[in-house]
């Protein structure tokens, strides 16, 4: 280590930070996100060859319809995990929204009004989470374990084991409409708009930079003028709002409002986000990775279904993928540590500190 520093000093031209950066192609291609996208391409390629009927517009249509709720909820979840928090209650908010939406429609509300009412319900749920996390100052894990039970419980209390299955046809048809003769559902355009909005917020606005900053260091973010509490509140509100939106979508898609809707969906969403390269410790991640993660899980599930593999196996796969995606950085670090112990950033900093 010392020799490198000594030679750097001996050089007439002082090295700048740019000299320590990797080449551009490495920075863009050797990332977790690229690995996920590559994985997605490989899975799609393999499934197209190996699974009958996989490469068809019907498959694409069902795939897009199935992953829409996951995709919608993954957007705010990404931001929340980026700040180092978590929201386990999203699937329960979805269920509660689905139930209240069903009850509003059954109670004779016009559908647009019911949609607005349901979005308000989602916002209230998000506000409860946000209030407990920011104002009361509780850990989000504890809060959302509690609200996960509470919101689902209220949904069960309201509707019991019954289901509401009558919805106006023109609205349920909306979820199955396709763009022309392609297999792409019309509502995918709406989802695409949402993705773009969230990607822009996340990567190209001060608010988004603040989210990354909070995840890297809450204190440092606070000192640099990021309003940590307000940011977190907004994120939990967004999670509530979009979970309600996903709840409305799921209700219309299946024409069923039940308290059991979306059971276990929080796992799929969190798995997809972490698989997409977002660090569970916060501060690291990118939107294109998350989208690839959602598509990866969705593709695996739909390919397995087409191959007549039961959904239990895909549950094992999703669970294992989740575990693997969170431990892979540790495994990589361990392998690298074994191979080149001297080149880890930690030792470099130490050497630097020892010198100065």
């Amino acid at each position, binding site marked *: 280590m010392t020799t490198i520093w000594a030679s750097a000093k001996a050089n007439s031209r002082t090295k700048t930070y740019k000299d320590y950066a990797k080449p551009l192609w490495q920075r863009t291609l050797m990332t977790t996100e690229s690995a996920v996208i590559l994985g997605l391409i490989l899975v799609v390629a393999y499934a197209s060859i190996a699974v009958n009927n996989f490469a068809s517009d019907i498959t694409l249509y069902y795939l897009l319809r199935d992953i829409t709720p996951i995709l919608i909820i993954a957007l705010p979840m990404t931001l929340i995990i980026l700040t180092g928090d978590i929201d386990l209650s999203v699937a329960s908010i979805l269920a509660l929204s689905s139930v209240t939406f069903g009850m509003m429609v059954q109670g004779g509300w016009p559908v647009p009004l019911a949609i607005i009412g349901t979005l308000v319900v989602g916002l209230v749920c998000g506000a409860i989470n946000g209030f*407990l996390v920011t104002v009361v100052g509780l850990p989000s*894990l*504890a809060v959302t*374990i*509690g609200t*996960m039970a509470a919101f689902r419980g209220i949904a069960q209390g309201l509707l*019991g084991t019954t289901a509401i299955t009558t919805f106006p046809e023109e609205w349920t048809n909306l979820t199955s409409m396709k763009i022309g003769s392609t297999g792409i559902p019309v509502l995918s355009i709406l989802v695409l708009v949402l993705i773009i909005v969230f990607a822009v917020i996340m990567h190209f606005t001060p608010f988004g930079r603040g989210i990354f900053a909070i995840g890297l260091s809450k204190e440092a973010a606070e000192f640099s003028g990021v309003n940590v509490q307000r940011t977190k509140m907004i994120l939990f509100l967004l999670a509530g709002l979009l979970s309600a939106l996903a709840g409305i979508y799921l209700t219309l898609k299946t024409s069923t409002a039940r308290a059991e809707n979306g059971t276990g969906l929080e796992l799929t969403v969190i798995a997809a986000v972490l698989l997409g390269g977002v660090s*569970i410790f916060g501060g690291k991640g990118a939107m294109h990775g998350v989208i690839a993660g959602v598509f990866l899980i969705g593709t695996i599930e739909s390919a397995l279904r087409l191959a007549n593999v039961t959904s239990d196996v895909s549950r094992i796969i999703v669970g294992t993928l989740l575990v693997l995606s969170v431990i892979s950085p540790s495994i990589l670090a361990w392998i690298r540590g074994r191979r080149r112990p001297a080149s880890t950033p930690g030792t470099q900093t130490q050497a630097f500190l020892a010198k100065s």
Partner: protein
Amino acid sequence: MTSTAQLTRDPAPLPPATPGPNPVARAIAAVFKRRETSIIIAILVVIAAATIVNDQFLVSKDGFRNLLLNPSIYILLSVGVAMVIITRSVDLSVSSTLGLTAYLTGRLFIDFPGIPIVAVFIAGIIAGGLLGLVNGALVAYARVPAMVITLGTMYAYRGINVAWAGSNRINPQDMPKEFTSLGTAQILSIPVLTIIAVVVVILLAWYMKNTRGGREFYALGSDPEAAQLYGLNVVKRNLIAFVLCGALAGLAGVLYAARYGTIDSAAGYGVELTAIGGAVIGGVAISGGVGTLWGAAFGAILLLTIKSALPVLGVQDFWQQAVVGVLIIGAIVLDRVLALRQHKKLITTKGASS
């Protein structure tokens, strides 16, 4: 409040800012300040309310027995999860572990006719312990939050269970009578399952309170970095906590098979919320380092008592999970408020003394 009682390890709390009138009053105050006491009072209130509405709830033979029997399985789960939470982790996979070991119990009886019951108990505990070991190893070696790991294993274990059991169902007649009758057997009118649960809680509570290993759980949960610097074997502690938690869930799975007789692949679905809820309501802080196993056990009893009281009190039991959720939130808010008050008190006493 609970934290001081924990840290000093001795029943009398730190000298209060304003000394009470006499030791007896202070001792009474200390008892009433404990979380366990308030939980027991809450349990008694629920029982009293339900008994006033319908005296069958407590007085009848079945009523009394069910009050003791229903919580015993959940006590084991809550106590196991409490140990993990005290080390600042969490185990969401206990429900799936319970489901797997319950099915394993039934399968053992079917596949090995005449297998001794003790062997089945041991098999269940070991299987649970192994599943816990997987969790513990992933958490300890990969240094990843336990919540994500166990969320993953919760689905993976449940998936294994569903793949293994399929749509099969194990019925009471598939298992020997001596085993299924364990579920309702009594000694001195106390159900055997309750006795097993209480014995386990006594042993583990003693371990957590009085042994070096037990105190290290608290040290690790209070401040992991400090524990590491101090030289505690963090990996070993994490592993032990998860293995114990898994083994308890395994034992709970065997008892579940004995109690309910009918086991399918959905056995114990969603019970992790009750287990964690019981621990949190019983005063085990989710941020680690605080709480007692007794508190967790009483928290589980409170949840189950409420569950059986709801129909009696005229509330549909669909609302049960909402009650669980509200209680969890209430408990963590209470812990937060108490911690803030304690913090303020420490600052004022420090300011006064200097």
